[in-house]
């Protein structure tokens, strides 16, 4: 029987041919944790009898969630991470480096066909690079640091075929919001998604990362893009040596095949408090906002800041609202400075915060007040996500957020592009 991408990668890492439903014990190529999860990793590592890590070159810690530290509790946890990283000789991406899911691919740690484990649910982002990457909890990550291995139940696969050309003013974020709206927050629960179709031929790596980043919002374990010229071109900037690729067999078995032609896709918005409550922007246009946020591992890349700047350049955001901008990494920040993007965003009224998670997860950098409404480029709008359960979070693309920031209310970015 033929194999899907995930079946091939898990077979390769477990030393036997596996199919969906099998349990496989696999060797891990790279593992990491961030400051929300690493402290528990360290605790569990010692409790389970850990001493040396299995391979210090295959592990990293990233301080991005509350970075720099907003209070003494967090400072103690950050110190714990720094001490452990130093003692075990593992790489530490300290404050200001950026969000783990941008920093790690940029550090050249991800290659097609790799098996990556992260103590963060959006680890699935690296599927954009044709790698199997998935999030686990702290204790499992500790077991990986100790043994270099982890068990997997081989997931069944869902093939999503995307056809057509994206209309102006829409982007990868609209694609993935639309898909999640269609299949639901558990529409791909336990599954591996393979993306294919003509639409992807013109989709840059930033867009692929955005889509892969959010597959977990449909419950998926991982999501894959194929390794093509666009992937190779991106990778050669960060990794040396030959780049392989993993493709499914022609007779591979899919539990579900979904096909969409997105030639007339409209900009999409996810409504509070569920990521799958998705409507075309026109249906919610006019709703006043208090805070706009451009950043996160979903949409804090250079391409995202660039489109926002192209909309905001030479203009001023609405007086009643604030705009927070968090570049996804130091590299993104530096490029944005060099291109003048940052100047445009700040002159338009944007407030720049440290590369990292920004206000995405409610730890610092822009917690909304009671009754306030936030329009964000992030991936989650759960109640209380940004630190206040009495606020509302709407999710949209960088173009929609930037255009809405100008207007002070949720607005259709097609008005700008026309």
């Amino acid at each position: 029987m033929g194999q899907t991408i995930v079946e091939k990668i898990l077979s390769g890492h477990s030393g036997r041919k596996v199919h969906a439903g099998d349990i496989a014990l696999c060797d891990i190529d790279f593992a990491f944790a961030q400051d929300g999860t690493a402290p528990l990793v360290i605790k569990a590592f010692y409790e389970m009898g850990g001493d040396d890590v299995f391979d210090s070159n295959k592990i990293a810690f990233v301080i991005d969630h509350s970075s720099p530290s907003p209070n003494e509790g967090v400072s103690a946890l950050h110190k714990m991470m720094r001490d452990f990283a130093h003692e075990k000789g593992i790489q530490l991406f300290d404050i200001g480096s950026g969000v783990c899911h941008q920093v790690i691919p940029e550090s050249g740690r991800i290659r097609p066909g790799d098996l990556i484990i992260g103590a963060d649910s959006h680890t699935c982002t690296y599927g954009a690079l044709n790698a199997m990457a998935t999030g686990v909890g702290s204790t499992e990550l500790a077991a990986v640091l100790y043994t270099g291995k982890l068990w997997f139940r081989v997931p069944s696969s869902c093939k999503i075929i995307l056809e057509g050309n994206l209309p102006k003013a829409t982007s990868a974020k609209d694609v993935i919001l639309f898909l999640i709206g269609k299949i639901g927050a558990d529409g791909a629960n336990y599954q591996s998604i393979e993306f294919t179709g003509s639409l992807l031929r013109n989709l840059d790596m930033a867009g692929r990362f955005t889509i892969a980043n959010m597959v977990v919002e449909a419950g998926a374990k991982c999501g894959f893009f194929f390794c093509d010229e666009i992937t190779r071109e991106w990778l050669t900037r960060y990794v040396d040596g030959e780049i392989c690729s993993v493709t499914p067999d022609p007779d591979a078995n899919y539990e579900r095949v979904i096909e969409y032609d997105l030639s007339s896709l409209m900009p999409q918005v996810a409504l509070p408090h569920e990521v799958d409550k998705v409507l075309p922007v026109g249906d919610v246009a006019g709703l006043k906002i208090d805070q706009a946020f451009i950043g996160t591992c979903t949409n804090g890349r250079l391409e995202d800041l660039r489109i926002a700047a192209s909309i905001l350049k030479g203009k001023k955001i609405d007086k009643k609202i604030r705009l927070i901008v968090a570049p996804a990494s130091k590299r993104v920040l530096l490029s944005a400075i060099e291109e003048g993007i940052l100047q445009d965003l700040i002159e338009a009224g944007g407030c720049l915060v440290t590369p990292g998670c920004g206000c995405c997860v409610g730890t610092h950098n822009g917690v909304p007040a009671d009754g306030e409404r936030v329009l964000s480029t992030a991936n989650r709008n759960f109640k209380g996500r940004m630190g206040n359960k009495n606020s509302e979070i709407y999710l949209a693309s960088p173009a929609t957020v930037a255009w809405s920031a100008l207007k002070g209310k949720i607005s259709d970015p097609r008005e700008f592009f026309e």
Partner: protein
Amino acid sequence: MKLVGKAHRFGDDINTDLIISGKYKFKTLDMEELSKHLLEDLDPDFFKKIKKGDFIVAGKNFGCGSSREQAPLVIKYAHISAVLASSFARIFYRNAINVGLPLVECDTSKIDEGDNLVVDLEGGKVIDQTKQEEIDITPLPSFMIEILSAGGLVGYIKENRGWRI
């Protein structure tokens, strides 16, 4: 292993931010303290209502959202003996087993708030004593039961000095 307690009823898609808000979890590793905030955005008094051994009973996709292990941990520290749901989110499912919190996948649609339940993990059934009904449960793979019996993955790895699959 037979567990006995009352049902506390919740709906579908209960996510990890609802279980324990990020604003607490980044501050401390003190699970006793965190557990007081369990599900407080849905029910501010929930922690006070729990009697040792009680169950959380929910609909589909329980535990969706982040990979924070604090979510199953705070449930365990709040003295909930198991979570029953019609389905669980993937990472939460793994995390719960790894921290030694039993999960029961079964049809929860007929269980109401306050029902007296007996959960028989080995026997593969839930008995709703209030309704006098029996519900079949989806059995766990054997190595997961081994992890649960070791009190979680820490105990399992310590005992076996690695994996035994």
